[in-house]
């Protein structure tokens, strides 16, 4: 089964419900009070304006990185290196953002985010080059590059990008001019969320309303067919990989410019891996990914509230995320089997007649 030929529609919702059911049974098995937990989930994710802001804040990098994964997958490029590309983007954003003092705010922020996109794209291009010049499968190269990039950023905050005081493994704060505007204080929601929504819109237009998008999807569906149709699969896939890296890099950039203001060695914190689940749950469709990112943002936000008020471990949210992904794959598999055996039965019925 090709990852680009996922069954759409009901399977995503079914998988999510299965995951919530599985997650709840884990919770209740652990002895949590169901009422407390449910109240905490709702309050934590959508309880008031603050909670909604928190959900959307957490959804922001997931949305950008989810789009990154989806854009790659659509073109048949299995980029699972978003985690490392996020760090590359964050590091580039900090390297540029530090020197933006005195530059007009919109330009400073734009330059910082552009640096992030370039950082991510550069990181992904390494994998693309290995794939199309040296035939190294990108599944391998991107996951291996994750380790390289994570360790590289961990070195940066102890070396060239370490704070001037040279005390802690973190960078100095980027210039205030480079920080993204806050949308709804006191929530942490920042302009990066709007940027992520716009990116989803652009991805939608690119994939479904342009010739380039058609080529990209054609390459994803079948390299041979695309070649016969006159497309150059390698060029298209190279473009998709770099774009994918640019989106992941931007996810790192908005985390820095919208939230932390500094580079830390563990800034990405697994966002790049959760993004794979987000992309698949969103059926590799930009609008589906907006929804999936908000669901996962809500899940993380309510996980924090569950910890605070119901004493539930942080691991439970991860269990739910993992179950959602596995449920999704299982549902896809089942749907595929059902449609295939249905088709066989039909043709068998037609034959005698």
């Amino acid at each position, binding site marked *: 089964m090709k990852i680009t030929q996922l069954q759409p529609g009901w399977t995503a919702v079914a998988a999510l419900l299965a995951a919530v059911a599985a997650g709840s049974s884990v919770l209740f098995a652990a002895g949590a009070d169901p009422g407390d937990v449910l109240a905490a989930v709702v309050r934590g994710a959508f309880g008031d304006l603050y909670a909604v802001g928190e959900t959307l804040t957490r959804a922001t990098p997931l949305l950008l990185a989810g789009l990154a994964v989806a854009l790659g997958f659509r073109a048949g490029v299995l980029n699972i290196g978003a985690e490392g590309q996020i760090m590359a983007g964050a590091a580039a954003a900090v390297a540029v953002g530090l020197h933006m003092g005195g530059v007009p705010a919109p330009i400073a922020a734009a330059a910082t985010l552009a640096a992030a996109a370039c950082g991510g794209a550069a990181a992904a291009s390494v994998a693309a080059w290995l794939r199309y010049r040296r035939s190294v499968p990108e599944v391998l190269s991107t996951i291996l590059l994750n380790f390289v990039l994570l360790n590289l950023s961990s070195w940066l905050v102890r070396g060239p990008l370490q704070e001037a005081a040279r005390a802690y493994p973190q960078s100095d704060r980027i210039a205030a001019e480079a920080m993204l505007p806050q949308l709804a204080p006191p929530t942490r929601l920042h302009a990066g969320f709007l940027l992520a929504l716009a990116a989803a819109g652009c991805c939608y237009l690119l994939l479904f309303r342009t010739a380039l998008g058609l080529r990209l999807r054609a390459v994803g569906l079948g390299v041979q067919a695309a070649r016969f149709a006159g497309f150059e699969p390698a060029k298209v896939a190279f473009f998709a990989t770099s774009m994918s890296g640019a989106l992941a890099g931007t996810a790192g950039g908005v985390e820095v410019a919208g939230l932390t203001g500094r580079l830390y060695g563990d800034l990405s914190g697994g966002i790049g891996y959760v993004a794979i689940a987000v992309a698949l749950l969103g059926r590799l469709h930009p609008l589906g990914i907006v929804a999936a990112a908000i669901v996962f943002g809500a899940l993380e936000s309510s996980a*924090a509230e569950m910890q605070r008020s119901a004493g539930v471990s942080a691991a439970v949210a991860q269990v739910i995320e993992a179950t959602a992904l596995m449920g999704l794959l299982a549902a896809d598999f089942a749907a595929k089997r059902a449609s295939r055996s249905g088709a066989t039965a039909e043709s068998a019925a037609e034959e005698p007649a």
Partner: protein
Amino acid sequence: MRRMAPFRFLACIGLLLAASCSGGSSPNSPAKLHVALLSPGPVNDNGWNASAYEGLLRIEKELGAKKSQQQVKNPSEFEEGYRSNARAGATLIFGHGFEFGDAALKVGKEFPGTKFLVSAGAPGVHSENVASMVWRVEDAAYLCGRIAASLSKTGKAGCVGGEDIPPVRSAFNAFEQGAKLGNPNFEVRQVYVGNWHDIGAARAQTLSLIEAGCDVLFHDADAAGLGMLEAAEQKGVFAFGCTKDQSSSAPKAVVASAVTDVPKSFVEIAREIQEGRFRGRRIEWTRKEGMVGIVWNPAMKARVPAEVLKQVEELDSKIASGSLKIPYSAQ
């Protein structure tokens, strides 16, 4: 239909949003002590986070406080962790690590009625309602160094640190200073794992220290320090534990441990707040308050020469009385 699926999905989310927005926020109850802990890692790590959690449990038991705990995954969550707990009515919030400093100062301004604590915070991280606290491991590391000098045959010791940060460097420098009291030519090497959890890396670095002639070892590497203890036990060299009494982790290697009583310090802060005498400041917990000290491994104590034992006791009582001060030096 293929195209429609995501829209349906979005509609579901919209409904969920609309349905749940009606809930109210939590009430504020300043009368009762409500203590929250933000831990940078899981509280079952048998080290840094576990000791903070133990402190939280003791505050709950001894002072009748309401408790809540939250593990933060990455730096973008620090601020949110403080703010959400403050909004939920917490009167005291511990951020267990230097990295919480920025967030504590920022959120501290938004919630003047809530007290914010930063463990191992950098100098300057305090305000009206924000305090940072450090444990002066130096007081115990100095004594460990003195003992180490009497046990070493090669005149060389190795120190394995987690992150290369000022408090760790300072502890190792105190260890070296203590060792030089016994042997002015004593040499101390410092290596850093780069994190607090990679036992394998700590073990490998320790083996290369032993290879280089270090026959006494000390660490300040939290969970990763277990790798140092393993290597010491295996190679039959002396070692000193850190943070907790680690005699049981390497019974044939550990001579003594430089311990810090993190739980007791947590209770002390909570008590200050309950009794209304808290003020934002940089707090240094030392041997004097009984928050730092050495704990011997009874099975290994006999290996230390009697005159050294006597000197260590004298030094310890001088440090405890305050007449001997071990300097903070992160050079």
